């Protein structure tokens, strides 16, 4: 095993002292070497002692390493409207038109509310929360319609927004969802950026209690906080859908898409979690798309026979009012989706949408 070099190291003859060194010099060399080594050994020993002292952990590891959580995802509602009744406009298109123009409906509703400029100011960085839960065609009505996405994004940019981005943490594979729903294409055309739910965009958040709601379910829970970086306004774009467990999936249920982790554990308390979602984040504006409504087999749908043309679109600052109106579109009582009342109790909005004195606008008239 030993090579020629190691062979050379065998044997006992000592190397000759360099000629000219006296025994006294040799002793001095030895002494110097000894002191050097003593210093080196002390350095090693001190490093050990120093590390132990600096990093000493007397109490042992904590039970959980959950860090400090952010409180919710932010309040993007208009400051001047806080504590006051929200604003709302409901547009019905001409029922004789087979394919209602969502952009025209949206513009009509916004005009009644003072134009999008009343909500989006120049320089705003806008985040759109779409429902892209499933990788299905927009024709099946399970996801936010791309026409609506494009219209909102373009109007925001026109109003002077510095940037428009959209996001969701969908059920199906994210890339497929954004592509197959047509949302990615609509975003590309209108100048909005798609934020895919990268794992590193999630951070733990907690919802502080408000009355009986909050502080219980969303606790140190991973949420899509990274998508909100620099965001100043939030607009929710939600379809109106049947949902067997929750009663209906509309605006507030759409916020489920901000959650990460094994969020399905919350279905054990579906109304509790949706009410907490209403506190997790406060949108600037909510667009509820009732042009086609999914009446059965929700929230996935999958068949045109699950849908019904209702030709209605609502724009409001109040997500609870939006959902209360959505229940009317579904032909259901507000109490059939108990989270609406819970969210109202928690102070997230008004379950009696009519008390907002909504503008009823009929494009067919």
């Amino acid at each position, binding site marked *: 095993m030993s090579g020629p070099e190691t062979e050379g190291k065998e044997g006992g*003859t000592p190397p000759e002292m360099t000629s000219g060194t006296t025994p006294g010099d040799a002793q001095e060399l030895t002494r110097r070497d000894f002191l050097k*080594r*003593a210093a*080196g050994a002390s350095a090693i020993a001190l490093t050990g002692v120093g590390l132990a002292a600096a990093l000493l*952990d007397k109490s042992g590891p904590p*039970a959980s390493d959950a860090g400090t959580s952010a409180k919710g995802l932010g309040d993007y509602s208009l400051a001047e409207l806080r504590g006051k009744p929200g604003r709302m406009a409901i547009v019905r298109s001409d029922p004789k038109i087979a394919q209602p123009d969502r952009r025209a409906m949206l513009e009509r509703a916004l005009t009644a509310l003072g134009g999008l400029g009343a909500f989006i100011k120049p320089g705003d960085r806008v985040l759109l929360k779409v429902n892209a839960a499933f990788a299905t065609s927009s024709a099946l009505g399970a996801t936010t319609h791309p026409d609506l996405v494009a219209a909102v994004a373009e109007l925001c940019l026109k109003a002077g927004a510095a940037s428009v981005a959209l996001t969701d943490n969908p059920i199906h594979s994210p890339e497929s969802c954004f592509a197959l729903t047509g949302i990615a294409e609509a975003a590309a055309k209108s100048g909005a950026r798609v934020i895919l739910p990268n794992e590193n965009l999630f951070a733990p958040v907690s919802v502080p209690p408000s009355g009986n709601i909050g502080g219980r379910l969303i606790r140190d829970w991973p949420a899509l906080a990274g998508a909100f970086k620099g965001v100043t306004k939030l607009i929710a774009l939600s379809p109106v859908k049947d949902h067997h467990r929750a009663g209906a999936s509309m605006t507030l249920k759409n916020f489920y898409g901000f959650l990460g982790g094994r969020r399905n554990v919350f279905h054990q308390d579906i109304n509790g979690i949706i009410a907490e979602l209403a506190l997790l984040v406060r949108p600037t504006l909510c667009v509820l798309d009732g042009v086609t409504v999914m009446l059965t087999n929700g929230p996935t749908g999958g068949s045109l026979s699950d849908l019904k043309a209702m030709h209605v679109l609502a724009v409001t600052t109040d997500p609870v009012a939006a959902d209360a109106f959505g229940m009317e579109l579904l032909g259901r009582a507000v109490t059939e989706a108990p989270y609406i009342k819970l969210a109202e109790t928690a102070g997230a909005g008004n379950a009696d949408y009519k008390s907002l004195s909504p503008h009823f606008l009929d494009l067919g008239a």
Partner: protein
Amino acid sequence: MRFVLNIVTARRISQVFFVLLTLWLCAVTTLGASFWRLSGWPVNFILQLSPLTALGTLLATQTWYAPLLWAVPVVILTAFLGRVFCGFVCPLGALNQAFGWLARRVTTNFPGARGAALRARLADNRHSPWQAAKYYLLVFLLAAACFGSLQTGLFDPLPLLFRSLNMTIAPVIDAGFQALFLKPRHYASAWLLFTVFATVIGLNMLRPRFFCRYLCPLGALFGFLNRFTPWRMGKIDDSAHGECGNCTLCDTYCEGACRPSGVLVASECLMCMNCLDACPQARMTFAGRASAGGEEHLPEPSRRGFLFAAAAGALSAPLWTIGGLADTGKNPLLIRPPGALDEARFLSRCLRCGQCMRVCPTNVIQPALTEAGLEGLWTPVLNFRLGSSGCQVQCVACGNVCPTAAIRPLTLDEKLGQGKFAAKGPVRLGTAFVDRTRCLPWAMERPCLVCQELCPVSPKSIHTRTTFEPIRFGQAEVVGAEGRRLSLSGLPKPTVNLGSGDYSLRPSGLLAMNSPEAGLRRINAFAWLESGQTFTLDAEPDPKQGWRLAPGSVVEVLVRLQKPYVDAARCIGCGVCEHECPIAGLRGIRVSFENESRSGPGRMLV
């Protein structure tokens, strides 16, 4: 001849002492109050001496856990005096040395035998560049630790020895006379644990202290720490001693193969002191100067080798993450002991020393073979079938012997969720699930309910719903009736004891949707003959409840079943139900890790 304590004799006494101490500490790691039980003995003392454990956990957790401070004096000792630990303290080193000596003992007086043996020994103890291997292994392990995967315990001689003693030697020896355990212990994959240990010992036949020279990462760490020892072994060549005669007796007996006769490889010197003893001219010294034969440090390790080992170690931890076994792909049966940290932090601390498995009074803590993946080899996992019960509610032994707090030292209050831990609730290991296709009452119309009976939680997490169900072949015709006695015919010989109190009679076809017990008469006594069957009921059959007693009327036997349900919000996953379930193979109620406290947000229940 003067009588002085020869240094080699002193070394041997020290080695024997530490081997005996190790055996003693292993023996007393048994629950109990007498002095030869776990009654304040520092059972982790030997394990805590390892600077490799301290450094590995330091890199993986960025902390120096206080009980591991014992490594600090070892570091200081090594820095100044060299690998004294290897020569005088390490119990596995001592065993290796003893077996290496046994393997080379000359037992014959045949002429020339002794000379041949000495020549063979000289060849065995020649320095080898392969001794660099352990340094690569060390670098690999430390690089992996930097990324949160602590694997040092697999190779560190101290956890290796404790693991082997705890789970192979002790249970095998004790199975005979049962001084330590009430019944023979079981340890999954004990065969593999012993194979590794036997290989470590057996390799001494190839080279003395093979493990120490080529593999031991702790030795390698000492090989770095002794870089600047002011005092060290070396030979002198001066006029007083004359020239070295090159007899190579020092090399012949060198346990570390550090080449004392030539250029001494200082990092390899195990401080066995044999050269001191072997030199016929007392030329070998332990002194503050370099050996006259020259001196070098480290057995020619290559920079390339170090880089490769570091890269491999740094990659191994992220690669293990890719497997997802600590995360979404976690094995449902990976149930860790109470107080175990979440999987990622657990794997940054566990040494696989087996102390928790050794101390567990019910033997449910087992070394994982595949449950935790390769990364978690021999980490503790609960197996409620192998153990002698479930995890005992009132026991916190495992966390309190864990040397690195991979299992936190719980108090009973914290484990049970009482006192100041009331708001947090008890520590949960998982959740029990009833398998309705295997549970006796659910699947086989047999009363049982052992699980509910032994559920230690109050209120019990296992509760029941009672049903009365017609048994198979349970119909018969009335022959005659007299008070509470009923004579029937046509009932096949039953396979269960119908008089046990669990069975009742009822008129056949009686639909008792509103009250399942309507019309039921419990069978108090029962006699079966082919010709006819006699029943004694607890009360007279009541025609108002649908009883027709005319001969030929059909009645049926029903069994009262209490079907178990698990209230997951109360279940702590202790596994007593699974252990006690009479379905011996795949149990009718089984615990898996769902809802365990350690996994944090996303547990099964909200």
